[in-house]
């Protein structure tokens, strides 16, 4: 167990290290001089050299790299070139919106995947199975931004039952008192049911658009796992003990089918947390994705480079958490095989 954990943690550190090197190298090989970029085309060569020296670009590469990663891990992510604000503050302000959307979307995708996979496998009804598989193909083939527009046209423009692309709350609404800065939770904490409802309504369409392709992936995976596990002899053995169909399925098929889905779930959550530039853009969602979109347009490298590294680190952390969870719940990982005759 200890060995397993040590291995996974070391592996994750390696992955983060690799990501920092990659981000660093990409930044160095990009054309253009940051100092020139900051000072603008009219600045003198003297000023550019001075700034180069000031931000350390004339130092050896390993020194630059060391400063780069030590700054990153200390939270010194530099300042936005466009408005001079600290990148840490900018991303910190935007993160709760992205996290709220990611978690909500993940929960919806996961719940839908589990229930539809169950529906299509448990009773051996070929028609249900075919419908679920068809739906998952649709989800696979539909680009999220297209689905986002479609959802807006149907539920906002035509049916008027859900709010349009106006961010996290209605235009005139005031956010609930900031605690977690996730509006649904904060609204509940403050007891503002109206605000909670509004925040929830605003979450639905972007969550669906964001989650659809991952849902398709998860439902297919889970369905295949369930089918495979439900054919395992240990299910027959459980039934042979006198267990009801559902009891045998719930106790033995579900946990075994769920294990491989855990890894996939981790990947999906990691992806969601890294933010979706397109979906946030379409729904005017004030998250990290929108911030990065604007930063790219304005060539605001400080934000972009931090975002790249940050999403890499987060992705690695989520997957590390999944691996550790595995070690806790799967006895085959937790306890080594002891050959005893």
């Amino acid at each position: 167990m200890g060995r397993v954990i040590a291995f996974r943690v070391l592996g994750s550190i390696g992955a983060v290290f690799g990501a920092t090197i990659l981000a660093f190298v990409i930044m160095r090989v990009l054309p253009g001089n940051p100092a020139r970029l900051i000072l603008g085309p009219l600045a003198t060569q003297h000023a550019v050299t001075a700034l180069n020296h000031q931000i350390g670009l004339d130092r050896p590469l390993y020194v630059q790299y060391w400063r780069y990663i030590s700054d990153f891990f200390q939270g010194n992510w530099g300042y936005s070139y466009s408005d001079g604000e600290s990148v840490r503050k900018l991303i910190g302000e935007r993160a709760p919106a992205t996290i709220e959307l990611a978690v909500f979307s993940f929960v919806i995708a996961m719940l839908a995947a589990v229930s539809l996979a169950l529906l299509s496998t448990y009773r051996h009804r070929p028609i249900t199975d075919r419908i679920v598989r068809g739906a998952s193909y649709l989800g696979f083939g539909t680009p999220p931004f297209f689905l986002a527009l479609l959802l807006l046209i149907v539920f906002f423009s035509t049916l008027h039952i859900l709010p349009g692309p106006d961010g996290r709350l209605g235009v005139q609404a005031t956010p609930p008192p900031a605690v977690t800065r996730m509006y649904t939770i904060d609204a509940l904490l403050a007891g503002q049911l109206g605000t909670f409802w509004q925040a929830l309504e605003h979450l639905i369409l972007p969550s669906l658009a964001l989650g659809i392709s991952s849902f398709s992936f998860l439902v297919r995976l889970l369905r295949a796992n369930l089918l495979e596990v439900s054919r395992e002899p240990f299910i027959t053995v459980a039934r042979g003990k006198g267990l009801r169909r559902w009891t045998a399925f719930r106790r033995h098929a579900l946990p075994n089918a769920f294990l491989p889905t855990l890894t996939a779930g981790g990947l999906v959550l990691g992806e969601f947390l890294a933010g979706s530039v397109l979906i946030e853009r379409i729904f005017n969602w004030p998250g990290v994705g929108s911030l990065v979109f604007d930063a790219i347009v304005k060539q605001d490298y400080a934000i972009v480079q931090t975002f790249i590294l940050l999403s890499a680190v987060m992705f690695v952390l989520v997957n590390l958490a999944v691996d550790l969870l595995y070690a806790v719940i799967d006895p085959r990982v937790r306890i080594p095989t002891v050959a005893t005759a």
Partner: protein
Amino acid sequence: MNGRFTPSEEPAVSDELALSVRNLSTVYETGYSLVHAVRDVSFDLRATERLGIVGESGSGKSALALSILGLIEPPGRVLEGGIMLAGRDISKLSDRQLGAVRGKEIALVLQDPSSALDPVKTIGSQIVEALAAHEPGMRRAAGRRRAAELLREVEISQAERRLDDYPHQYSGGMRQRVAIAIAIANNPNVLIADEPTTALDVTTQAQVLALLDRLVDEHRTAVILITHNLGIVSDFCDSVAVMYAGRFVESSGVDHIFTAPTHPYSEALLKCVPNPERLAEGPLPAITGFPPDLSKLPSGCSFAPRCPVGRDIARCHEQTPLPHLVRGPAGEASVECHFAEQRIAEVRV
């Protein structure tokens, strides 16, 4: 084909019927084909009798076992047939009603011990589950104690400690012992063992078989042992049924099948058993051809295309043989072959 014939020198088997199967047929129905896995099988199993069912892979042995327990899953389906367990027809029971029967009156041991246990549940919990299924509200401590007793009964040392192990911490032979412990947990009257030793190495095979032998003897359990190993049948069983293409083509006491196999298929099967004398004679004979595709069964006798006797006889290809009751030197047999009488007469000469 109702006859199950106990050899006269085997008085241990009583006349009381533990299980009686009548005209059981099971099919697997896919969009493209209808596979007849079990075709019109009837037999009786007396209390404490041990019936061996032998046949090649794909002859419908496992489907028969699952059909008796009502565990055929779609696309499979039991077409018809009566299953009398201790005088009560269980073939029409609902799944809930059958749940009270399975594991309690009739239990199952499967072939592959590596997949017969849930890999993420402890051995103890899987044994307790078998007990608790028929005793709701059983206390935790009582369940554990009885699970440990069962483990001891299947000769696993340090039973209490090993209850908390997971299947991957057990060897193949030990896992099969656990599977047996689960099957006998509620002291069933009938045990169906589907190739219980096939996946084990030879030494372990003998040990597991000896264990099974002792347990069913002590508990006075009737056994249906499904195997393709005739050696196991001769050691373990009182009677035998040879299954081919979903049918019982020959059934008799064990002595008959080894002295006067009457169906050409039984004879061919027996010739395939390796033994030292025969090895000296050269390579083992194999049964020519392949088992028939159960979705495209030939008309007449299913064995006819491969049969050394009936291959060229029109009647064998046209007319399905009915069970013929014959008496050989080592007891009676029921044989589905047009030439049964003729063949047994040749043996007697």
